[in-house]
């Protein structure tokens, strides 16, 4: 599906018609899994992901507990039918790495120090995909944590950014990830402080290009942030007044 002769410098617009700094359509619904303490469903272009939060709860096995904070355990998984070639059951090395970097990115956002010796289970499941599933999951997971009423420093907003067909672009899709010059950079920030909590990169990039891309990425994250806030407010307006003071809550019982 790679398009060898495309040149974004000439076409001025992208294969799917977007502008260089335009994010694919993004839609978030909060509170979609009744059993979970918090949850979110997210559609981002063709990507479709669910996120659910359970906890804080007793950390198991016990030796995984931390006496100073809650441990955020993310499990990133994809259904077998979410990719063009069937994904085999069970986590692979990619899933394992993504779970780790997502856990680390979310740890900065939650006031984990308030729940020592507990774990917060964050489960994200990709049910359809087209490049960018990890940032979609991180964005959804962050909303699910807020939906669970956990005290947070800020939301985590994430996006993909990089290079394809000669231009610096935001939110690469699969065709762009397959470009001969493709560079893909998942990035996530706490939007208010602009702290970078997730950053990965693949491909060949000059420092100059990086400097432009970094700006583009931070702006992209902020666009995502606006949609996250809207989704959370929409739910709270729909009657869940008690959960309104997002980010200020500090009391939450730990289930045993």
């Amino acid at each position, binding site marked *: *599906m790679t398009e060898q002769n495309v040149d974004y410098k000439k076409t001025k617009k992208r294969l799917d018609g977007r502008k260089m700094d335009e994010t694919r359509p993004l839609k978030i619904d909060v509170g979609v*899994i*009744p*059993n*979970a303490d918090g*949850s979110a469903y997210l559609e981002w272009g*063709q990507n*479709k992901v*669910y*996120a*659910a939060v*359970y906890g804080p*709860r007793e950390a198991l096995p016990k030796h995984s507990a931390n006496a100073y904070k809650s441990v955020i355990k993310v*499990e990133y*998984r994809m*259904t*077998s*039918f*979410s*990719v*063009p*070639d*069937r994904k085999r*059951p*069970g*986590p692979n090395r990619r899933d394992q790495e993504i779970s780790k970097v997502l856990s680390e990115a979310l740890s900065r956002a939650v006031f984990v120090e308030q729940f020592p010796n507990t774990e917060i*289970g964050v*489960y*994200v*499941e990709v*049910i*359809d*995909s*087209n490049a960018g599933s990890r940032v979609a999951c991180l964005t959804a997971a962050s909303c699910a944590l807020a939906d669970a009423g956990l005290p947070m420093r800020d939301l985590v907003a994430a996006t993909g950014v990089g290079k394809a067909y000669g231009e610096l672009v935001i939110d690469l899709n699969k065709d762009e990830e397959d470009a001969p010059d493709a560079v893909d950079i998942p990035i996530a920030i706490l939007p208010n402080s602009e702290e970078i909590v997730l950053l990965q990169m693949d491909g060949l990039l000059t420092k100059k290009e990086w400097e432009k891309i970094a700006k583009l990425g931070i702006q992209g994250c902020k666009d995502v942030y606006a949609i996250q806030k809207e989704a959370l407010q929409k739910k709270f307006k729909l009657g869940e007044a008690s959960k309104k003071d997002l980010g200020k809550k500090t009391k939450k*019982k730990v*289930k*045993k």
Partner: protein
Amino acid sequence: MRNTTLEYDVSKAAELAREGKRLDGRALDEMRELTIETDFAKNAEGSTMVTLGKTKVMAGLKMGVGMPYPDSQDEGAISVGAEQLPLAHPDYESGRPSDNEVELARVVDRGLRESKAIDFKQLCIKEGEAVWVGYLDFYALNGDGNLFDSGSIAALVTFANAKMPKLDKDNRIIQKEYSGKIKLARFPLLTTFAKVGGKVLLDPTYIEEKASEARFSVATSDDGFMTAMQKGVGGSFTLEEVNYMIDLAFKVADNTRKKLKLK
């Protein structure tokens, strides 16, 4: 906290059942509201989201090309998997398939396979050399009981709606191009009952499953066949109870097929 509430609800469910009532006000032989959504996963050859009360299950199909089995050179195959995702319930855990997941997958699988709903000869690409293998996986997204029936519906609807991929001359799949559909010879659906407080309940919730002494599922098809049975949990049924459940199952499955416009 959660466990205390749960224990209370469980014993309450048994108590109510003895009086012919249920926690959610349903009649003993009443099914919860059912809705479906199809083809939400563009990378799948077919996909179905089933909502049954608060239970939510999704299924997706990927078609692959494989070698035929030595003893059926002109037939394709299917493979069915089930996962109770940890995001669907605090009790579900990741890791290797639990006994419950294996039983769930195998009962849904048998309901489809042994009923000969799918003529495997239509999945032959070249005799003795290449056949289609249909990988159908279903996942609980929110677990509130009766994953058997919701999984069975999700699986059947997915096969009924699936598009067949196109192949190039070397029998390799051409992405995003399709040709035709899988034909189904019949449309069997599972109907599941729980025995709670000595009574037989249709379409049990999670609480009712926890309260149940025994479980019984039977797959019935639109052309009048029983195509699978499975008794579960540590209790027992009388033959009369089994016969009652089979009769009711035929009606329930007919209603569901009508509602879903299957056949």
